């Protein structure tokens, strides 16, 4: 089966600085692919290229086996790629339903269809087995960090998306809430979506990831099967740019 998303030999420079040098990456449906790498390795640039915020200079971008052109965020959304950024981009003054449908409100007779929106928000949250939100009509400002992350992720899957990219979803969370969000990430993949998880935290990565892609100074060191490797090897790959013996997938 071909991967859901495949990048081949992707290059990107900003002026004289080459940020991505021939990066290959594949994300499969139903699997959590972790993207790890030190600061400045090019993780953000890679994700922004996938999301259509930046354009790759060269290289192939394949989605569901077909070559595609993603030149702006709308193209990515049309393919079914949703990115949850680290700052979540939620409006604190709006409630959960309005945040989930922000910019894509459902309408009936040209008016906002609150009933259907609330129903669908509820269904999506139930589909992800989210039980931590007491009411979908609470303003987002009154939610905890984990709940906010949950809302942002639920918003990403609301639109029958196929690939969800999560940028450091647990960075600002406590232990219990990290646990809660990671379970949600796992459920996304179990529901058949492709998940690309960007993380600094190897604990998180080993807890949920099926395979681990390591970036080192703009190069893809390798995509490793999580079950067949160890923390030590991944750390070595992140810091030295070389996959130790027996770790390659």
């Amino acid at each position: 089966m071909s991967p859901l998303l495949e990048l081949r030999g992707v290059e990107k420079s900003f002026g004289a600085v080459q940020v991505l040098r021939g990066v290959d990456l594949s994300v499969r449906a139903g699997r959590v692919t972790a993207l790890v790498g030190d600061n400045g390795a090019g993780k953000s640039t890679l994700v922004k290229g996938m999301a259509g915020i930046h354009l790759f200079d060269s290289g192939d971008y394949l989605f569901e086996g077909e070559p595609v052109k993603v030149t702006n965020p709308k193209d990515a959304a049309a393919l079914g790629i949703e990115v949850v950024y680290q700052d979540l981009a939620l409006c604190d003054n709006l409630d959960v339903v309005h945040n989930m449908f922000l910019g894509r409100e459902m309408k009936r007779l040209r008016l906002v269809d609150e009933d259907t929106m609330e129903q669908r928000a509820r269904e999506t949250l139930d589909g992800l087995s989210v039980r931590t939100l007491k009411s979908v009509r609470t303003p987002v400002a009154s939610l905890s960090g984990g709940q906010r992350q949950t809302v942002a992720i639920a918003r990403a899957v609301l639109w029958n998306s196929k690939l969800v990219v999560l940028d450091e979803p647990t960075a600002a969370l406590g232990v219990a809430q990290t646990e809660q969000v990671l379970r949600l990430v796992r459920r996304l993949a179990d529901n058949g979506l492709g998940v690309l998880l960007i993380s600094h935290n190897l604990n998180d990565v080993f807890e949920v990831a099926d395979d681990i892609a390591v970036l080192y100074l703009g190069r893809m060191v390798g995509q490793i099967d999580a079950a067949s490797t160890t923390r030590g090897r991944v750390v070595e790959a992140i810091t030295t740019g070389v996959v130790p013996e027996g770790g390659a997938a």
Partner: protein
Amino acid sequence: MSADVDDRPVADPSSPDPMPDNSLGGIVRAYLAKLKGGEVGSLPAVLGLVALVVVFSALRPEQFTNSFNFANLIGQSAGVTVLAMGLVFVLLLGEIDLSAGFAGGTCAGVLGVFLTRQEWPLLPALLAALISGAVIGLLIGLLVARLGIPSFVVTLAAFLGLQGVLLSMIGEGGTIPYRNDFINGLNNSNLPVWLGWALAVVCIVGYAATTYVADARRRAKNLTVQPVLLWALKAGLLTVVVLAVVGYLSVERSRNPALTSLKGVPVSLLVIVGLLIVLTFMLTRTAWGRHVYAVGGNAEAARRAGINVFRVRLSCFVLCSTMAAVAGIMIASRTNSVNPNTGGETTLLYAVGAAVIGGTSLFGGKGRVIDAVIGGTVVAVIDNGMGLLDQPQGTVWMVTGLVLLVAASVDALSRRRASATGHV
């Protein structure tokens, strides 16, 4: 799967929204919890209004409470209130429009020029005035939203500039009289008593019926919904207030009824209520309205969600200045004429004050159109009541300033309280 871990108790999973306590005690507790969380809304303004009315009624029982003064107060407040309604949209973005007062004056001047000097028919003249307002808003909005100049500076410049436009249009020391009955009636005449009552009934029944039907539909779909008792309380309160106001305004209030009869709901109140309903509908029921709140809450999030932030900003400035045109006409209608000071002096400051006193936040993202009406009434009561106490204008302004300061403090404190407890 094990239950999710969270920092707060988890409700029964089978009913995600916990059954709300539908008793009176439950409603009161929920409301108190909201207040404690910093969501005070218009409560301080309403309490302040009650306190002011009680004080003035005690000090000047004859003059303040009679129905002549009550109708007078509505006419006095109409311009500021309408102006404040438009300002709410700009304030929701976290912006300000200092030019709205003179934008209103200028548009009233345009109306005067076309209607009186050029002797145009009413409709084209009125349209020209409203379009002038929209164009002023368009220019301000373009400068703010496209070029990114702070709205404070742009509208300060527009404030000075429009003052000049109005002055040169009318001429130093001049006035343009309005000789059109419709325009002069806007802020001077009254509806027939029967029509006042009819509209009151339409308002009450319309509100009660539409909200009841919507609630019933949501209840059938198992969505979040307010308790029936709360609906009954709201509808009951509205009924009492509307009937009391209309009843009081339907009393003969002329000092010499044999000569001229003065009774019925002022047309200006109809204008205010009509605009209140239309603007509230736009803000709460359309996608555009949701986007205004979103841009005010987090413009970057709105942009990433695909909302055209530029267009939302622009439309709010256009709406604000168009409402300012209506406000200017209401003010000029009161005196049947435009002069170089129409919409000047304290008009704009009172209007901003009214919106803020009513509970609209200067930080953006929080506010309702009705805030402007409540706040406008507070400002008008102070102005009117202090006048009846024979207080010099200096004292009136000092007291108004103090009230505004208190309102802004309530806003800031409730925000602090809200961020501490995690509410908006």
